[in-house]
C-alpha cells in the first residue's frame, strides 16, 4: 500500500473526517473522536503502521489533545492520530495491547498531564516521584519555584 491508497482507504473508512486528512511531507493527520481512538489505532496498525513512535498530549485549555505518531516502515510514512478529551474527564483507552511501546509513553503522559489510560497494565508515575502533587505540564499547574522569565517585546 502506498500513501495515496492509504488516503483513499482512510477517506472511505472515516468519511466524516476525510477533510481533516492531509498529507504534508508524507505525514498524514487523522483527527478522531476519543471513543474511536483505539479502533482507529488498531485499524492503522493492520494497514501497516507497525511502529508507535510517540504518545504525547497538549493542554489546550478546556481540553487535552492527545497526539500519537505512528510510522510505517513499508510505506515510508508517518501519520499523526489526534483525539481530544475534556479536561474534567481526562481519560482515554490505552493502546498498550497494540504496541507495548505505549507502556512507558502513556505512563509519562499520565505523570505529566494526569490523563488516565483505561486498560493500561501498570499506570504509575514514571519521571516524577510517587508522592508528587499535581501534573506539571498542565497549563494551570502552580509551583512557587517557577519564575516567569521577562518578556522580550
Amino acid at each position, binding site marked *: 500500500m502506498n500513501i495515496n491508497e492509504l488516503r483513499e482507504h482512510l477517506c472511505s473508512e472515516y468519511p466524516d473526517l476525510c477533510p481533516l486528512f492531509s498529507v504534508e511531507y508524507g505525514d498524514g493527520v487523522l483527527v478522531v473522536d476519543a471513543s474511536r481512538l483505539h479502533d482507529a489505532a488498531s485499524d492503522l496498525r493492520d494497514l501497516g503502521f*507497525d*511502529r508507535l513512535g510517540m504518545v504525547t498530549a497538549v493542554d489546550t485549555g478546556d481540553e487535552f489533545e492527545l497526539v500519537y505518531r505512528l510510522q510505517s516502515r513499508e510505506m515510508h510514512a508517518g501519520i499523526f492520530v489526534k483525539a481530544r478529551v475534556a479536561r474534567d474527564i481526562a481519560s482515554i483507552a490505552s493502546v498498550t495491547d497494540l504496541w507495548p*511501546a505505549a507502556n512507558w509513553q502513556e505512563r509519562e503522559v499520565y505523570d505529566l498531564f494526569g490523563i488516565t489510560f483505561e486498560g493500561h497494565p501498570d499506570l504509575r508515575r514514571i519521571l516524577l*516521584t510517587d508522592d508528587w502533587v499535581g501534573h506539571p505540564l498542565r497549563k494551570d499547574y502552580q509551583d512557587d519555584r517557577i519564575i*516567569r522569565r521577562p518578556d522580550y517585546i
Partner: protein
Amino acid sequence: MTEQTIVNIGPSHPSTHGVCRVVVTLDGEIVTHAEPIIGHLHRGIEKMAENRTYLQVVPLTDRLDYVGSMYANWAYCRAVERLAGIRVPERAEYIRVIVCELQRIASHMMGIGSTGADTGAFTAFMYAFAQRDHVVELFEALCGARLTYNYVRPGGVSMDLPEGWVEKCRAFTAQHPSAMLELDRLLFGNVIARARLKGVGVLSAEDAVAWGASGPTARGSGVDWDLRRDDPYSVYPRFDFQVPLGENGDSYDRARIRLWECVESCKIIDQALDQLEPGLVKAEGLPRLLAPRPGDAYDHIESARGSLGVYLVSDGTPRPYRMKVRSPAFCNLALLPLLAEGHTLSDLVVILGSLDPVFGEVDR
C-alpha cells in the same frame, strides 16, 4: 525455586551509565525481573521550554543527550524551521551533516568504550576515548565547547567553519577507519568480550518494532530502518553509505554495529567535505524574535541512539506553547526488563550498557 532476593542497583552506580536505579529481583544469581526506575535527572526541560523564547530553548536541548548535543540541537531546529517556514542555506545543511556524523562517532565511542569497560576490557575504553577526544577537539575549535555546543541554530549554524578546520577534519577521518579495525580486533575479537556479549540480551526483530526501539538497538536485531536513508532529510540523499545490520540481536551485535556505523560516518563526512561549497551558514532576514504561525510541527532525525523527534506547538507568541522530545533512549530503555530476564546479574550490566542510554535524554 529458592527464595527471591531484591537487589537495588543505583541510582548512582558506575555500571548504570548515569543516574538510573534498577530494582532487580534475583533467584540465586539469575534475574527474574528488572525494573528501571527513572526520573532522577528529570529537569522538566519540556516545561522550561514553555517559558523561553524559541532561540533560548536551543541551549536547553544541549542538556538532553549530553554526549550527542548536536542531534538535539538539530532536531529542535528542524521542528522550528518547519513551523516558521525557514529555508536553510545549503552550506549550513552540509555543516550540520558533518558535525552530526562527527557527533555520531563521538557518541558511539562512548557507547563502545563503556561496553568494553563493562566487560572488563578497560583498554578498549581508552582506545575509544582517544578517538572521541579528537572529535571533541574538532568541536572545541568549531564552537568553543566540548560538550554542550549550542551550535545548530534555527536557520543554520551559529558560525562558519574556522580556518584550517576542514583539513583537521580530513586528518581525523583518514585515520579513524583503521583505528576502528584495530578496536574491532581488540574488543570484539577478544575471547572474554565475546563470551560476555554473545547471546546475552537477545532482542527479536518483532519485539524491537513493537517496543518502538530504534537506532543501533533495533538494527542490531536486523530491523533495516535508518531515517537517514528511509525518511531522508537534509542533504543525506546525496551521500552513498551503508546501514550496518546485526543478525542475532544480542549485545554483541548491538555494540559491534556501532563500530561499523562510525566507519560509514567517515564516508559521509568525506563526501560532504568534497561537496562543501562556500556560501551563507545562516538564513538571511530572520527576525530577532521568532514567533511562528499558530500550529504544530514534528521533525525527527537519526541520532546516535535512534529516532530523535521534536514535536512543537505554537500559539503565535514568541515562546513555544508545548515542546515534546521523542527520546530514543527512553523507548530503548523500556526494553530492559524484557532483555534482562533469565540472565545473571553481571549480564544485566552488559545489557544495560548495550542499550547505551543517556539519562539526560531519558529523563529530560
